[in-house]
């Protein structure tokens, strides 16, 4: 019992630390002061701005669309890559796997500058394409890392069996292998999405100048003035937090149902 209390206490403490800054953002999203920490009286002005100012909307849409696109491309590329790698000869597996892992552990700034150097040689330097490639380059390895373990867990004879039963390789891949590794693919997609949403360094080195994501705007608004849209992002933080809460509640309810079903089944068996 004591152990349990300690465990829960520790978990709560860490979670509290993780969420404390977010709570600060949420609290100060209800006042229209430019500076976090100053209270100009209760106001929903920031929420109003968040939903009405076109520039803000553009930035949010830009960030989300970029993240979705990057995650989608990374997922396709990474899943194919993982499949191919898994079925390759050992030497290729090593070479590709090694190359793939470079961007996982490499410092972000090195990835960013190396890409910037390459793009500076091409006409699409600092366009949407360079930005997308930059994001795909650092998201894809994580998709690969999510998919490979699922491939390893899979029964290797499944694919062969499908072929023996007359399926085309494509069918065997799509109908047999893909469903097996789907959890890994979904996890990879979500991870890529998260990484892309949160990125600043690579974005700032590859983005076109007329394009701002939330991070680059927040960080580059050096001359931010009285009319800056910066404070409105506190309201965005609150909205995202709300979404997180809703997702967690839904998952919780679903998990609860699942648990019930499982215990029910166990009883039946007994």
């Amino acid at each position, binding site marked *: 019992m004591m152990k349990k209390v300690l465990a829960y206490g520790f978990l709560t403490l860490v979670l509290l630390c993780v969420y404390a800054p977010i709570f600060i953002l949420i609290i100060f999203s209800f006042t229209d002061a430019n500076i976090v920490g100053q209270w100009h009286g209760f106001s929903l002005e920031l929420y109003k701005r968040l939903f009405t100012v076109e520039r803000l909307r553009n930035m949010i849409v830009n960030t989300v669309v970029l993240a979705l696109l990057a995650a989608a491309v990374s997922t396709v590329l990474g899943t194919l890559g993982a499949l191919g790698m898994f079925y390759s000869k050992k030497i290729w597996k090593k070479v*590709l796997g090694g190359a793939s*892992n470079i961007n996982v552990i490499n410092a972000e700034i090195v990835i960013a500058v190396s890409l910037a150097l390459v793009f500076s040689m091409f006409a699409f330097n600092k366009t949407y394409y360079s930005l997308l490639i930059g994001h795909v*380059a650092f998201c894809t390895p994580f998709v690969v890392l999510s998919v490979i373990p699922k491939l390893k867990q899979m029964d290797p004879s499944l694919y062969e069996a499908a072929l023996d039963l007359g399926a085309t390789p494509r069918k065997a891949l799509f109908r047999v292998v893909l469903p097996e590794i789907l959890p890994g693919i*979904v996890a990879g997609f979500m*991870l890529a999405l998260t990484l892309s949403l949160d990125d600043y360094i690579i974005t700032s080195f590859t983005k076109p100048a007329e394009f701002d994501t939330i991070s680059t705007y927040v960080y580059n608004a050096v001359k931010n003035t009285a009319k800056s849209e910066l404070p409105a992002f506190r309201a965005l933080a609150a909205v995202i937090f709300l979404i997180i809460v809703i997702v967690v509640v839904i998952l919780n309810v679903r998990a609860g149902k699942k648990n019930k079903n499982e215990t029910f089944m166990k009883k039946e068996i007994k």
Partner: protein
Amino acid sequence: MASSVKAVARENYAGNEKKTFRALFKRSYLAIPYGLFLALFVVFPLFLIVYYAFTDKSGGFTFNNFVAFFSSSTYVSNLLISIGIACVTTAVCLLIAYPVAYILSRFKSARSYIFVLLFIAPMWINFVLRAYALREILNLFGLLGKTNFLNTVIGMVYDFLPFMILPIYTTLIKMDKSLEEASADLGGNGAVTFFKVTLPLSVPGIVSGAMMVFLPSMSCYVITDTFGNSKVPLIGKLIESMFGTNANWNMGSALAIVMLIIMFITMLLTGGFKGEKETTRGNAL
């Protein structure tokens, strides 16, 4: 080429000659797009960095960038401080993340992954924003401006914690629980079981987590700017300013090479991501 392969494959299939067909379609071909992508946008850029690092502004071959780096006590000290910060960050992350992952992995219900989600979800709110808010909290405690190194480490840990929790958690839930039970049956108490069985078995997770935290924390200059009031030198900041305000790409590339060398050393030390070490952040999602 590809279409003709398919045509042949179809023909063969029609003729029900599965053997030939299997020989023609290789699943490993699926990796070709990713392989090309890696070659073009991961490996080639690194070679380009090497090229820039060994040339001067006019394009002539030179070692000067490296000479300049290793002869400047500021640069070398900067690198050493960065390594120090990265080590401390990794250690603190591990100290916090391991118990968290351990507790989560002991949850019996399916709810444990919801808790894991709770640790990753903050990443959906932009880090720069969260950083400014955390800065206010440090200010509230009177730390800001006084303990720059501590603040930097706090910021780093805050940013990189999820990257440490996930791999450890993934390794722990995959672990064969019967081993622990066996240890208990053989009379090992909790501590013995943990140190002799659980901890050694979760080393791969720790290693992947450490690798994901170590190098990025050497370069995350956003954090030193925000929490260390730019008083804490970081090699990443130096690289950024070489490509930005100093407009010295060659020197910047040389610095990047130094970081790459460190990366390869860490890969060597940990054996990269081999075998079961391919535990990921994503699995838990």
